[in-house]
């Protein structure tokens, strides 16, 4: 494994988008925020899009509420001429804005009022991932048009699998462009072109059964929804593909974040393979919260010495040694896991961030994380 030099990546003016990915709970949001802060204080104009930041991190960034608009972060050191804006994704609002921008007012209202749209925009599995990509697209557009930012750092939704971020938009797109939904939403068109007989008894039976199950009104809503969305986007899949292609644009780099745990590392491995397959530019892997032993005494040796000290009556020094022994064991486990990952992915660049005691609640703490991230 080689060293991942994130400092150089952030300084490179060619780098315009950084996407932080990884399974849930590995510190993606913190990593994204730390990278953004570092770049801003090195003189870049940065916006960071967070998805679901922990309360205290959100406060540190001045994100008091869900607000789809980037706002300047206070207390950033701007002496190098940079700036930092932060925002939290509001997926429903992003979806609404997409509709409002692309449809005439009447069609837009029709879509916004539709019950299928309402369900889709607030709860469909994958909408959050899709909207994160949409919002990234919008920010990029704004950055190009207004010159507001020269670097966008994106956090991804907290899903079980990092792959969800890449898969959800296309899944949503191909589902909405699926055979069945096309049939029931545009029976006249389909019938006119293909002919009811060619569709076969099977399809009619299927449509009738599902119609009975879900009710006439629902089927009508689906039909209205798909028709309206069609006039706006000319097919969902095309839209999703376009959004996806943004991730392959030059200047985009992926940073995969993982904690030194078996499941998280396995997840990160899948993701690395997938990025390679889709020819998406991977910067490297951030190993977050790695325990590092701070004294060269093996766990066994420390425990033996602790026992001797207890016998001699120094319980305090003995306890310090025992705490070290426990920590050294965790550190050894992390080392083994990281070594196994290195063996499996010899060309993967990595950087380690040591385990910190408390959670990240202010900009100085974020700067510490950034310092570790940018020290290869």
């Amino acid at each position, binding site marked *: 494994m080689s060293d991942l030099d994130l400092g150089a990546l952030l300084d490179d003016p060619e780098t315009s988008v950084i996407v932080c990915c990884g399974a849930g709970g590995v510190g993606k949001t913190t990593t994204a925020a730390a990278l953004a802060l570092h770049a801003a204080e090195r003189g870049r104009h940065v916006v960071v899009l967070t998805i679901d930041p922990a309360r205290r991190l959100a406060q540190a960034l001045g994100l008091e509420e869900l607000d789809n608009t980037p706002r300047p972060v206070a207390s950033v050191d701007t002496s190098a001429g940079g700036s930092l804006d932060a925002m939290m994704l509001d997926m429903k609002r992003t979806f609404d804005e997409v509709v409002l921008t692309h449809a005439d007012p009447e069609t837009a209202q029709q879509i916004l009022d539709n*019950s299928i749209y309402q369900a889709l925009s607030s*709860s469909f599995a994958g909408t959050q991932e899709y909207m994160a990509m949409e919002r990234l697209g919008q920010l990029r557009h704004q950055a190009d048009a207004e010159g507001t930012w020269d670097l966008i750092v994106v956090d991804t939704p907290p899903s079980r699998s990092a792959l969800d971020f890449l898969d959800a938009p296309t899944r949503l797109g191909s589902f909405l462009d699926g*055979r069945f939904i096309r049939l029931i939403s545009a029976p006249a068109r389909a019938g006119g072109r293909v002919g009811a007989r060619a569709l076969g008894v099977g399809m009619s039976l299927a449509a009738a059964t599902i119609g009975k199950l*879900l009710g006439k009104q629902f089927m009508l809503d689906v039909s209205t929804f798909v028709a309206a969305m069609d006039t706006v986007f000319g097919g969902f899949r095309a839209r999703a593909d376009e959004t996806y292609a943004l991730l392959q644009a030059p200047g985009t780099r992926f940073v995969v974040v993982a904690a030194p745990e078996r499941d998280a590392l396995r997840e990160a491995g899948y993701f690395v393979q997938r990025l390679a397959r889709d020819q998406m530019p991977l910067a490297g892997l951030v190993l977050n919260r790695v325990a590092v032993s*701070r004294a060269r005494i093996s766990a066994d040796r420390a425990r033996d010495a602790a026992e001797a000290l207890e016998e001699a009556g120094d319980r305090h020094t003995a306890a310090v040694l025992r705490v*070290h022994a426990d920590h050294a*064991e965790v550190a050894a486990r992390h080392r083994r896991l990281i070594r196994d990952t290195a063996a499996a992915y010899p060309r993967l660049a990595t950087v380690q961030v040591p385990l910190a005691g408390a959670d990240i609640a202010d900009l100085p703490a974020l700067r510490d994380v950034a310092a570790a991230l940018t020290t290869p």
Partner: protein
Amino acid sequence: MTTAREPRAVAWHGTNGAPRLHIVTGKGGTGKTTVAAALATALAGEGRRVLLVETEERQGISQVLDVAPLGTEETEVATGLDGGAVWGLSIEAGAALVEYLRLFYRLGMAGDLLQKMGAIEFATTIAPGVRDVLIGGKIYESVRRTTAGRAPGARRGRDPDAPPAYDAVVLDAPPTGRIGRFLDVTGQLADLAKVGPIRNQADAIRGLLHSGTTVVHVVTLLEQLPVQETLDAVRDLAADGLRIGAIVVNQARDDSVRSTVDVVATQEPDPARMGPQLESVGIRTTPAMLEGLALTAAEAVERRDLELSLEDAVAGAGRPVLTLPHLPEGVGPDAVWRLAAELADQGVRP
């Protein structure tokens, strides 16, 4: 339920009923599948049958118990703590819909056809709440089924006196972020399916979830975010009229570690004093090493203080707390068995 302290011992699940449906939720990554498996194992006492169910097609149960991937047929997956049996089931909404259509619409083989047409995927994906009703329906049926073999409500073999087919059903439920929506089966259907069998089924499921038969247990770690999500979930679910059972603190450090840190916390580690002491038991010290030891010790104390305050926060929810140890060697059937024994030691009874 009353908030006043009652003199008698409170049951491990903290409710005065005899729950048979145990819903296990928690923030992602807290180990709720492992805890659900351990709970099922602990509840499978002598001669008892417990059904362990997952709903998100993750095959988490088969991974944790190291058995073949679960299908839509119930299969025996483990032996209970006291010789009972744990059965496993992975509920898949599509299969549930096909079964449902067969039952209520007498569709017979047409289910396969619907599957091929994409109709099943359509119905279970786009219609808000339908998926949850279908999954809820399977859970409802497994809780209500009797040893007479048929689901209540089915025409054949109905015997109200027959004992239940499963003594308990343990659900590895969606994580805290989605659990409220998942359990609010009828609310989700509000704009849809106002009448008809789907609606009736949703009402029946709601009745079961809000009865004394059901409790929701929440799994957490002693970390800021999981505890916050746990407290939020406990509050929100209780406000929805659901009964909250225990809060399970998972992957806790064992007591010996805690008491060691307690000793460390009694005084500031002083490198000048520690050096000679360490040398006296044969450890060659350097200033950097002594600094390192002091820093590690200080962090352990900081970590303990955070854990203590989080423990207080968890206790403040007013629910029984079950604590399970951290198992560094990872999870597997042996670990599940060990955690089940821990649960039993802490009062978990069938």
